[in-house]
């Protein structure tokens, strides 16, 4: 079996499972945020169960609209706080203590190799970077998980992506995952698991792996996953309270197909409006004028991403007329960036530093776009209307490309600076 099959077999108490089988699995952890949580809570009350199945296996994070940007958001936050208190849920991350839910889940040790984690957020697939099977579900389904701790899942076919070669400077994880999605399409892995492997993946940091697995859902995947190694075990051991039993793909594991990718000649990649698979190398879109540049989100708001942006803009000024919005993915990332002087470097260059939130990526607040405006963003979606006006344009790229573009006021290849 491959890693996804092993985790689903373990979670459903079976020796073996194979693709296409439907299993009823026990959930190890369940996560909700301030957009999906209130609806899940309302639905949980409708079911009529008084107590959640396990208060230690639920994580609640306020991240999409924090601090509350409107009275309506404040009401949603109130619903979340009340439920956490009533149900005695210890892992509740309020404003100032958490950040973007997926980053919080990873850094607070709620994601462990070998576990099945469901989250009421599509980017729950991020957790595969730590060897867990993470998958996104809706609020009603989450209410049922709150009540029973169980979920039915179809065991997915797995596409293995084998990555070889060596990145050029300023080309990295984001460019790679964009290029893979560009190759297989926005529904290229629909219902399937994507397992990333090969020397390039093995040499990646945990942060880069989180970026890769995070975007698996943009190809429709149920999860993105990487076999856990020493780097992952070291990351998790420092954070998790419970013991860990990692699972890994067998040498003779079966895959629906294997896709081979060589990154040696990969240019920085840009996903053009309004689909993640509308992909072009940066050279074809260089010179496109921008009004906003955004570094943040569960895809690219980690310390390594902020470091990269700071390295590029250090001692320079961003182009007049461009808003450079920087949103650290979590409170921990924010503090680390503060300690390293990264926030000062960015702010001196003219960046507007926001508090940890989904913010502009989600199109909720903190950097929305007007009609006719263009943004280059390190986030994960460039759908029509995603970041504000349906008549705005969004280009997705790496933090390096975004920072370089902020300096020049137009989409720029960071290798040319």
């Amino acid at each position, binding site marked *: 079996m491959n890693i996804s099959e092993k985790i689903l077999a373990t979670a459903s108490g079976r020796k073996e499972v194979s693709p296409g089988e*439907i299993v009823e699995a026990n959930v190890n952890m369940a996560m909700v945020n301030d*957009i*999906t949580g209130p609806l899940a809570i309302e639905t949980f009350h409708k079911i009529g169960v008084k107590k959640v199945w396990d208060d230690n296996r639920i994580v609640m994070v306020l991240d999409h609209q924090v601090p509350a940007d409107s009275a309506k958001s404040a009401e949603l936050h109130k619903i979340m706080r009340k439920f956490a208190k009533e149900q005695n849920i210890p892992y509740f991350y309020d404003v100032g203590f958490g950040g973007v839910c997926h980053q919080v889940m990873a850094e607070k040790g709620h994601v462990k190799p070998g576990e099945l984690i469901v989250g009421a957020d599509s980017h729950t697939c991020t957790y595969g970077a730590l060897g867990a099977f993470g998958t*996104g579900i809706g609020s009603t389904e989450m*209410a049922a998980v709150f009540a029973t701790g169980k979920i039915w899942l179809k065991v997915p076919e797995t596409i293995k992506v084998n990555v070889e070669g060596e990145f050029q400077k300023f080309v990295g994880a984001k460019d790679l995952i964009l290029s893979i999605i560009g190759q297989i399409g926005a*529904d290229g892995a629909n219902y399937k698991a994507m397992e990333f492997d090969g020397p390039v993946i093995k040499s990646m940091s945990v942060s880069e792996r989180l970026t890769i697995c995070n975007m698996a859902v943009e190809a429709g995947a149920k999860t993105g996953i990487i076999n856990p190694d020493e780097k992952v075990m070291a990351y998790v051991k420092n954070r998790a309270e419970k013991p860990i039993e990692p699972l890994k793909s067998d040498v003779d594991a079966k895959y629906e197909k294997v896709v081979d990718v060589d990154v040696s000649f990969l240019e920085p990649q840009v996903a053009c409006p309004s689909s993640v698979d509308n992909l072009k190398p940066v050279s074809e879109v260089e010179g496109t004028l921008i009004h906003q540049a955004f570094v943040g989100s569960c895809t690219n708001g980690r310390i390594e991403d902020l470091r990269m942006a700071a390295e590029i803009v250090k001692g320079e000024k961003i182009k007049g007329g461009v808003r450079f919005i920087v949103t650290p993915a979590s409170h921990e990332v924010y503090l680390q960036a503060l300690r390293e002087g990264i926030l000062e470097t960015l702010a001196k260059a003219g960046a507007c530093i926001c508090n940890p939130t989904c913010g502009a990526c989600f199109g909720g607040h903190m950097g929305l776009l007007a009609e006719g405006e263009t943004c280059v963003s390190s986030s994960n979606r460039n759908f029509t209307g*995603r970041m504000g006006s349906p008549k705005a344009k969004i280009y997705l790229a790496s933090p390096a490309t975004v920072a370089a573009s902020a300096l020049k006021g137009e989409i720029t290849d960071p290798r040319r600076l």
Partner: protein
Amino acid sequence: MEIKGKAVIFGDNINTDVIIPSKYLTTLDPYELAKHAMEGLNSKFHEKAREGVIIVAGKNFGCGSSREHAPIALEHAGVRCIIAKSFARIFYRNAINIGLPVVECSSILEKTGDGDELLVNLAEGEIVNLTKNLRLQASILPSFILEIISAGGLVEHLKRRLEEHGEL
């Protein structure tokens, strides 16, 4: 279980941000959400849907976020069923869980015109285009999914199950 309605046509990769833009997600009121259903593509959709319609679409319908507000907005706007070449998985589960029927049919887009009267038989996986007098075969939903839909969604289905086991 039979569903009848006029077809409203959409293309490929209809994402959750156009089905219900994120700025409306601060409400839990399904009728408020319904007013903005499909606003990203057609601000008049909710008026058209009021009479009870069937959405006909291409591949990867509902891609994007996990927001259940998307199928809720469509259902309360008057969408009785969605027939697409394929669905994004979270949207697919969400629709079933709130009792909104979703059917996969590979040739639906080519064989249906905007406003065509459609009749869908979920158990048989059969779609009849009454306007064009055509029969199309759709995927047949597994019986446990049909059970969830006919119960009106996962909540009712789960309540029945818990009651049967004396857990409620």
